[in-house]
């Protein structure tokens, strides 16, 4: 268990902080929103991130990766959460690349991962079909079709799904929704005939899409792993996503908290700084406590990935459930403590508030993960 960053990782974190605050402050997200940007992030800045090695950091060296591990990537993602930097990092590197890495054939890895590392292609995981995160409920149908396969169905909420070059589609090739058996993963080009992608305008101003699969024909080599046996691949992929998303949320919560504490020190009311009011002091202290506990959880969760620990599922649910609660608490308190200005679009706190709730729903709300944690622990 590593609960502190080593030299290398701290360096990565500092570099990320500098790059992000210089190039992708919250203001950048506002611009993307106000210009109704179609992609939902800046391709140019994504290229720069890739040049900084962020896309290759967790990939094995044989696929042009740096093999730095998730402790390092987590530190970068945490920083990206501080500025709400919009990028396909989570969908391409954490979810997409992990699916290929954990489930793909050598050929698939060779074909995909180096291009991910270089930033040549982006990926997205097409999973959700319902109102709430429920991977086992996948119903999108995959049938054998000569040598290959045919997909029919719809995905309701696919982050970066409209802009990704390739989609990793979770489909059901057998058994019924709710069953872990019978799930399959397919690699699908974004421009495959029969695939419609509709951009969705989300409250957090990030890019997402709804997908419709109408007799989408796929070659045999589009299948990732074994037919109907995707769950043992998909679950660890989702857990990586949950942990890295939680890292982003931690960054956002820390930034939101620090801005609020700063405001408490500056804002005058009734002739004194509002930060001198004990009720607000105690609430601020409680947030600090929650954030410190969350940091410890995040460190352990990230090492659990790097060390391939058996309790990765627990840690993923612990991290996601906790960050859902903490980010919600901190954003609510931040708005309230900022008072009137806190509910104006002019102040950036609102962007954190909006992102927090999208992130909460992504890959499982707190209830989902507490239920999962309890079941994993045998009660």
């Amino acid at each position, binding site marked *: 268990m590593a609960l502190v960053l080593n030299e290398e990782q701290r360096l990565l974190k500092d570099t990320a902080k500098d790059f992000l605050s210089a190039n992708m402050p919250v203001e950048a997200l506002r611009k993307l929103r106000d210009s109704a940007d179609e992609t939902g992030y800046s391709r140019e800045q994504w290229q720069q991130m890739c040049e900084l090695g962020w896309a290759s950091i967790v990939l094995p060296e044989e696929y042009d990766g740096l093999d730095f591990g998730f402790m390092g990537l987590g530190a970068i993602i945490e920083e990206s959460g501080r500025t709400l930097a919009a990028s396909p990092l989570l969908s391409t590197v954490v979810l997409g690349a992990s699916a290929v890495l954990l489930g793909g054939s050598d050929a698939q890895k060779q074909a995909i991962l180096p291009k991910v590392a270089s930033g040549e292609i982006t990926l997205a995981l097409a999973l*959700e079909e*319902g*109102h*709430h*995160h429920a991977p086992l409920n996948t119903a999108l149908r995959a049938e054998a079709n000569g040598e290959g396969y045919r997909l029919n169905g719809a995905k*309701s*909420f696919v982050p970066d799904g409209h802009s990704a070059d390739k989609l990793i589609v979770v489909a059901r090739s057998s058994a019924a929704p709710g069953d872990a058996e019978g799930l399959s993963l397919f690699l699908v080009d974004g421009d495959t005939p029969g695939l419609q992608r*509709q*951009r*969705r*305008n*989300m*409250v*957090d*101003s990030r890019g997402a899409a*709804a997908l419709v699969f109408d007799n989408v024909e796929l070659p045999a080599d589009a299948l990732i792993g074994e037919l109907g046996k995707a769950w043992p691949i998909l679950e660890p992929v989702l857990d990586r996503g949950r942990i890295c998303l939680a890292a982003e949320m931690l960054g956002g919560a820390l930034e939101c908290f620090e801005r609020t504490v700063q405001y408490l020190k500056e*804002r*005058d*009311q*009734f*002739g004194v700084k509002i930060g001198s*009011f004990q*009720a*607000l002091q105690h609430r601020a202290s409680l947030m600090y406590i929650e954030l410190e506990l969350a940091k410890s959880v995040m460190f352990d969760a990230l090492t659990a990935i790097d060390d391939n620990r058996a309790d990765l599922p627990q840690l993923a649910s612990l991290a996601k459930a906790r960050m859902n609660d903490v980010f*919600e608490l901190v954003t*609510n308190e931040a*708005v*309230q403590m900022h*008072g*009137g200005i*806190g*509910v*104006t*679009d*002019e102040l950036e706190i*609102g962007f954190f*508030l*909006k992102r927090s*709730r*999208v992130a909460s*729903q992504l890959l499982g*709300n*707190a*209830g*989902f993960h*507490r*239920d999962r944690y309890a079941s994993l622990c045998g009660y």
Partner: protein
Amino acid sequence: MADLDQFRLEVRQWLEDNCPASQRLPITREEQVWAGRNKQFPSADAKLWFERMRDKGWTVPEWPSELGGGGLDERQAKILKEEMKALGCRTPLFDLGIWMLGPAVLEFGNDEQKQEHIPKIARGEVRWCQGYSEPGAGSDLASLQTRAEDMGDHFLVNGSKIWTTNADKADWIFCLVRTDPDAKKQEGISFLLIDMDDPGVSTTLIELISGESEFCQTFFDNVKVPKKNLVGELNKGWSVAKALLKHERKLMSEIGGDTPGPSFGPVQAALEYVGKGADGKLKDAALRDQLVRHEMAYRAIGLTHFRTFEERMSGQADSNVPLIMKYVGTEEGKRKEELLLALLGHQALGWDGEGFNEDEKLTTRGWLFSKALSIAGGTSEVQLNIIAKRVLGLPQQ
């Protein structure tokens, strides 16, 4: 009691006869009839309904009839409210003048002011907005800076007010202004009525996290205001303001969570977006628990509203209970919005465009807007301070 029952029957009959069918359907924000020099009516029925109610004085049931009101006592007014609710009759007229300024003028205004303003409000001829808060003042209302200089025959007003709801659509604004800069805080403040058409008055809209809003900032640049527009004594505006704040808190606690919102309530949303399992319970135990906690809290709050009314009626008025309603109404209102968001899941994450229906978008916007409820009209923190001081009599530092 007998005459009350009689009154109830008459009211019911009159409503049956006079309220057009279309005006008994749930009202949308677009269909609200707001007072104003140039009123907009969403439909002929709405106009008819408004005019009939106006002519009965029932736009302001408890105001004196000689001033255009309905002249009802509190019991009768409650019966009217109940009968309108039973029939689903829409509120015929919306205006801050009805909810806030009117009561204040009736309490503090002189006859001339009553004659000039009350009937217009009753008939919906003028739309009012409120000018209390100022940029930088926040909860510390008394620290306001907008200056009204005594120029003999008039006041010269300079400064700006923020959170002036619907100021862009209003005809008049009632303001707190500083008339004695040397007096300390609460003193030296006066209550002034200003015509928005006066030269030097300008208004800009404020964009909220929930998108465009009805909140504005209003600027006063050397605005000349006649002395007769001063309500209450000079430098004694604070007492008028306090009286009004009570009305505002009552208002806030009544609208509670029910700001621009979807057509469904939490239970409906739960059944639609989560669904029940074979055991007849909501499928998601965590959401079910969150839902029932909210439903139980709302029921307790509703019962408390009734209790305060009954206490007033039975002369057992415990003036303290109303003090909690602003806090509980807005705080539980926020929880309701968080609950709806959680119930809708991915469908509550949309901002605009395709893929999300109106109700879903209203849920998202309503959730964001609800964050303002515990800030506007006295923050939750101020409410708790007030309870600690006035109700519990805890020592102040």
